């Protein structure tokens, strides 16, 4: 078995695993957990090896079926892509421990179906990090979206309606992206990203090119819930089953931000976006600032923990889009570092929310009273995640905000800097409110249970849900301390050239 195909096996393993889980899970339920964990563990280790190899050797390019590009589909792994691969595999593996436990309770008897879609989603995300072909990106984007629609619709109550709303909006976004790629194909005659970039170099500026760019950008913004196209996200992510939201919430929007970076720098060139259309650039940074402010304000009005976290996700997407469009190296570094940090922070907070929901059955603020006493480790990890969201050193969130603020100051975008500081303040208010309810109010014991188990004492979450939570919280601190080497060793290489 040659290791030159290793990056392919990272994609093929979840794909094969999904259908193996479906087949073998029908025979016996006990196959699901070891298969899923085995496949994801393999993917994580392989992603580490690929990252080491890319940092040592440079960009790897791999042609499927041995058809040379631009005729064949090409997989391109540069440092940014390898970083995303590792992030996706590691976050998915960590979240799976928690999913296995909560899905046993929420969807008894259907775990094999759930994990088939789960593994297909991870295969799609991995493919998105690898691909170097514009149409292949559309196909993989739709694979991830369709499995997400299915996973969200498996929840209770209003979840199918939220999923239908997401289907409509998500498909509009994907169709816009497809239209944009159609325009690019008309102009250049090629679908390979590097080839399109080469041909566009020699082309003159036309309205068709601007239309293609606009369609692709708007399509990706709908998919990543950039304000004001975000209305599907709060309902969809908060009503999904906890086993699904711990994996979808950290990954989907961040991978779409990564795709936006890919499109902006591997297909179009920085000169086209930033210099020729300078007005558009500062407009988008203003919209990003507006997104941060509005999403933070909306988060203040929520009474449910998971919904509040979903509005915070919308604000974080605003950080990243603004950081990318700041058009300087600090902003770009901050945005890429924030992709990594935000995935870990969201993972930590959603894992804590899943643990709380598993034990108390509800996530309204009233049922969080006195949780510090009864679930101390969960709330300690939640506190670390909260500090990271606020931006307290030495947790990871501080360093990415630092780079973004530096980039904003350097680009004279004072609105964006003000929005960042305002959002930190609002996050502080939000999270200290929760910490106050959980710590200082002693409230009724186990009030949140809605299954009639009134006499059950709320106790610490089970080990399978606690271990990934503690791991995520420790990772936040570790990435915070390791920000320096991370930035200089990996991210500086990942920042696209031209700055």
């Amino acid at each position, binding site marked *: 078995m040659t290791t030159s195909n290793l990056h392919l096996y990272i994609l093929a393993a979840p794909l094969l695993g999904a259908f193996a889980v479906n087949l073998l899970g029908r025979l016996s339920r006990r196959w699901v957990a070891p298969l899923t964990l085995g496949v994801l563990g393999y993917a994580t280790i392989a992603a580490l090896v690929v990252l080491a190899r890319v940092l040592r050797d440079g960009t790897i390019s791999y042609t499927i079926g041995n058809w040379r590009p631009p005729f064949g589909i090409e997989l391109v792994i540069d440092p940014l892509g390898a970083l995303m691969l590792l992030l996706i595999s590691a976050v998915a593996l960590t979240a799976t421990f928690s999913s296995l436990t909560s899905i046993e309770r929420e969807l008894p008897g259907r775990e094999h179906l759930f994990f088939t879609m789960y593994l297909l989603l991870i295969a799609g995300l991995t493919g998105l990090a690898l691909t170097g072909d514009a149409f292949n990106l559309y196909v993989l984007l739709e694979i991830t979206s369709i499995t997400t629609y299915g996973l969200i619709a498996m929840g209770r109550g209003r979840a199918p309606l939220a999923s239908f709303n997401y289907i*409509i909006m998500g498909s509009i976004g994907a169709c816009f992206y497809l239209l944009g790629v159609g325009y690019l194909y008309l102009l250049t005659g090629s679908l390979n990203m590097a080839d399109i970039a080469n041909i566009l170099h020699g082309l003159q500026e036309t309205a068709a090119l601007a239309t293609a760019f606009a369609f692709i950008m708007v399509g990706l913004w709908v998919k990543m819930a950039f304000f004001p196209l975000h209305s599907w996200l709060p309902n969809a992510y908060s009503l999904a089953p906890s086993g699904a939201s711990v994996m979808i919430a950290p990954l989907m929007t961040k991978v779409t931000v990564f795709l936006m970076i890919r499109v902006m720098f591997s297909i179009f060139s920085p000169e086209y976006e930033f210099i020729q259309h300078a007005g558009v650039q500062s407009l988008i940074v203003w919209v990003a600032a507006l997104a941060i402010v509005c999403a933070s304000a909306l988060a203040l009005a929520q009474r449910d923990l998971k919904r509040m976290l979903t509005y915070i996700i919308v604000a974080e997407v605003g950080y990243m889009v603004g950081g990318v469009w700041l058009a300087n190296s600090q902003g770009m570094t901050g945005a890429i570092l924030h992709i990594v940090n935000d995935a870990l922070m969201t993972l930590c907070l959603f894992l804590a929310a899943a643990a709380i929901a598993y034990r108390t059955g509800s996530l309204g603020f009233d049922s969080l009273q006195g949780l510090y006493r009864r679930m101390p480790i969960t709330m300690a990890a939640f506190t670390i995640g909260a500090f990271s969201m606020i931006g307290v050193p030495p947790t990871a969130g501080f360093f990415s905000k630092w780079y973004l603020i530096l980039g904003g100051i350097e680009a004279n975008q004072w609105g964006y800097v003000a929005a960042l500081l305002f959002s930190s303040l609002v996050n502080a208010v939000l999270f200290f409110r929760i910490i106050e309810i959980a710590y200082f109010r002693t409230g009724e014991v186990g009030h949140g249970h809605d299954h009639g188990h009134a006499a059950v004492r709320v106790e610490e979450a089970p080990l399978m849900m606690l271990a990934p939570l503690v791991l995520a919280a420790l990772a936040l601190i570790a990435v915070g301390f390791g920000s320096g080497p991370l930035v200089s060793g990996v991210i500086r290489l990942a920042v696209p050239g031209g700055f």
Partner: protein
Amino acid sequence: MQGIIAEIVAKYNYWIYVVLMMIGFYAMIGKRNLVKKLIGLNIFQTAIILFYVSTGVKRGGGIPIVDKHAALTHGIDPATVVNPLPHVLMLTAIVVGVSVTGVALAVLLRVYREYGTLEEDEILEKIGK
């Protein structure tokens, strides 16, 4: 005025796709019934598929199915055959559309079982209560 009419007549196929797309878009946003929204989505996707396929058409071009031996001996003159690449890409897009429709219909079944109706305003009333 002459210029605008000449523009529209010369590129009438693109205007048809735009009209179809807007019909689909209006159905997705303006209609109250959930199934009609889904049909609007299908119309929107179909319009994009038509747009793509039309990009390969050439004046006087024939179907891109050629005899194997003729192709091996004489080669294929690209001006005589329609570009088959957009056709193949759109096969994939059709499959994606079918999958989304299938998932959406299954989700709508669950919505119907939960609320008893597929009209958006009635469902919002039931949730609001």
